[in-house]
């Protein structure tokens, strides 16, 4: 199949949703079924840029808003999976977006506890119960460890990176590479470490963490199924990252990767190349597991002032483009988020296959984005966090009108917020959704 045919097949699959056992998902009413199919078709038309949708689709991409809005703390949403799913359902039924990304944002609190996760602070573990989890930046990969990463990324992750970010996975440091297991003579030596108490403690933690993750995933899956049966599709398939962000966010850290650009640029470039197929595989694998085509790619360190134009073209864009092309080749729809300002990058990033991607736009000028990137790609956005939080419904409506008149012209646009948000005035979120459904009808 060509990439076109694969994408089309993905949408056809979405149009006839299945239960985990393979039977057709029963809709709760004919109206729910009609809404579900209309939403998928609307989003498909917006993304493919082949025909104008019936109206501008609406999405809402929150982080903790559905839970705080339901009167829960973030801590409660992380530890009580059923209440988390219930709050999310209430959120969807209240604001009725055409597309959502599921209730998975809080994640399973107990799972992080079992593994003694160090990379983030979360409610009760370094941040207040009512606040969102936040990353603890650090050099979890050292400047001199590029060769280790290049030689065998999985070995580096298991033996070095994971024990640094999970307190409970210290035992991994004692394990030999799996690639030493070759023939009968000597094979047993490879297994001796599994008898050691720290390694066994690590495996015990893994079994417990796995069970907890599954428990949570069952609730999340049930939530997605129920919402689909009510007419609200989640088409998010999973996530991957731009290779530069993979290394810069949680391996070397912001400062670390900056130093590497000056002090060891060749090693950094080699590592970016080396992890590119891994990032493609991560997206394709997630899409296969969930059956959904959209692969979210949060873009961080390529924003306007974070890199010079030359650095962007050298370090950031080539491997990000390869990741997107690899996903497209596999029938997926890359869903990058331009976090912050990306105005200076538009001319570079517009160079992508037409009708195969959808971009969440935060603070970049939407008119300029439409004139460049928008020629080849669907745009989502860009109602700001400050407006949703501090503005009035009239402010929101006026801004949405402007967006529909400009970015929405001729299709290729999905109304939504620009950045993930925890707090907002509900009436502003409602105004964004309701106004778009009314004013955003294409004639």
């Amino acid at each position: 199949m060509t990439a076109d045919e694969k994408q089309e097949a993905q949408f056809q699959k979405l149009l006839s949703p299945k239960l985990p056992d393979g039977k057709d998902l029963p809709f709760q009413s004919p109206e729910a079924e009609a809404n579900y199919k209309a939403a998928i078709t609307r989003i498909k038309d917006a993304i493919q840029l082949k025909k104008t949708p019936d109206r501008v689709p609406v999405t809402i991409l929150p982080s903790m808003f559905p839970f705080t809005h339901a009167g829960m703390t973030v801590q409660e949403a992380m530890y009580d999976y059923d209440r988390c799913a219930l709050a999310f359902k209430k959120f969807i039924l209240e604001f009725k977006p055409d597309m959502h990304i599921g209730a998975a944002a809080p994640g399973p609190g107990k799972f992080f506890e079992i593994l003694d996760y160090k990379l983030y602070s979360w409610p009760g573990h370094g941040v207040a119960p009512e606040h969102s989890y936040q990353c603890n930046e650090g050099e979890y990969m050292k400047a001199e460890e590029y060769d280790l990463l290049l030689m065998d990324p999985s070995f580096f992750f298991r033996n070095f990176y994971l024990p640094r970010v999970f307190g409970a996975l210290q035992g991994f440091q004692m394990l030999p590479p799996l690639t030493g297991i070759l023939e009968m003579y000597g094979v047993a030596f490879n297994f001796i470490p599994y008898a050691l108490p720290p390694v066994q403690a690590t495996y015990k933690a893994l079994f417990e963490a796995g069970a907890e993750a599954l428990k949570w995933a069952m609730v999340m899956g049930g939530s997605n199924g129920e919402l689909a049966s009510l007419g609200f599709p989640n088409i998010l398939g999973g996530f991957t990252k731009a290779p530069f962000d993979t290394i810069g966010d949680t391996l070397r850290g912001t400062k670390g990767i900056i130093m590497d650009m000056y002090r060891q640029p060749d090693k950094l470039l080699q590592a970016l190349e080396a992890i590119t197929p891994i990032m493609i595989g991560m997206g394709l694998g997630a899409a296969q597991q969930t059956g959904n085509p959209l692969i979210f790619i949060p873009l961080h360190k390529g924003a306007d002032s974070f890199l010079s134009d030359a650095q962007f073209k050298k370090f950031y864009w080539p491997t990000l483009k390869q990741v997107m092309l690899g996903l497209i080749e596999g029938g997926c729809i890359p869903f990058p988020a331009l976090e912050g300002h990306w105005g200076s990058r538009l001319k570079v990033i517009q160079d992508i296959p037409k009708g195969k991607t959808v971009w969440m736009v935060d603070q970049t000028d939407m008119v300029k984005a439409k004139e460049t990137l928008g020629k080849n790609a669907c745009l989502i956005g860009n109602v700001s966090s400050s407006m949703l939080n501090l503005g009035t419904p009239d402010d929101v409506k006026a801004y949405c009108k402007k967006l529909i008149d400009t970015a929405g012209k001729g299709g290729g646009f999905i109304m939504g917020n620009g950045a993930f948000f925890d707090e907002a005035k509900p009436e502003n979120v409602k105004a964004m959704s309701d106004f778009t459904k009314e004013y955003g009808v294409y004639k």
Partner: protein
Amino acid sequence: MAKDLVNTLADLKEKEALGIVQERLSAGEDPLRILDDARRGVEIVGKRFSDEEYFIPDLVYSGEILKQITDMVKPKLTKAAEVKRLGKVIVGTVAGDIHDIGKDIVVFMLDVNGFEVFDLGIDVPVQKFVDKIKETGSGVVGLSGFLTLAFQSMKDTVGAIEKAGLRNEVKIMIGGGQIDDQVRSFTGADAYGKDAMDAVKLAKGWIGG
């Protein structure tokens, strides 16, 4: 000698700059003069950043070079460095928010540009800002925040400063990923900046002359 430390550092030539510092130290030069040249070099980096010739990586890299130079020069300092300061600025990431990268760059650029900076760190309770203003008599307070929760924390901090009767004593600037004029108005701050050099400009406008 005679190689130009100011411009070598401004051009981000790390090895060359460190070499010059070593030579000048070996020649017995006044360490304070070396530090002053290095500081002027980074000031040029800041200007180039404002002119969009340099970007965040250049700022961070220049900070790393400056840190190494300071480490080399420090043991040779006989008396504490008496640097003339433009004024005092308090900086911190507001309560509930633990992001520090942007805040750290602001602290660094304010310091290099001649301010005495009191860095209160991250997740700073409102009272700590109030106490520090009383303690230091700083004329400028910079509040940093990345998350939407920071909007309220900033407002609370400005409110606490006001309640303590200090609002007329200080100018308050805010900054961070989602900060715009609407947020500034909500929090009651005097100004917001989009980057570290904006913070320098604001502080200079208020207390730096």
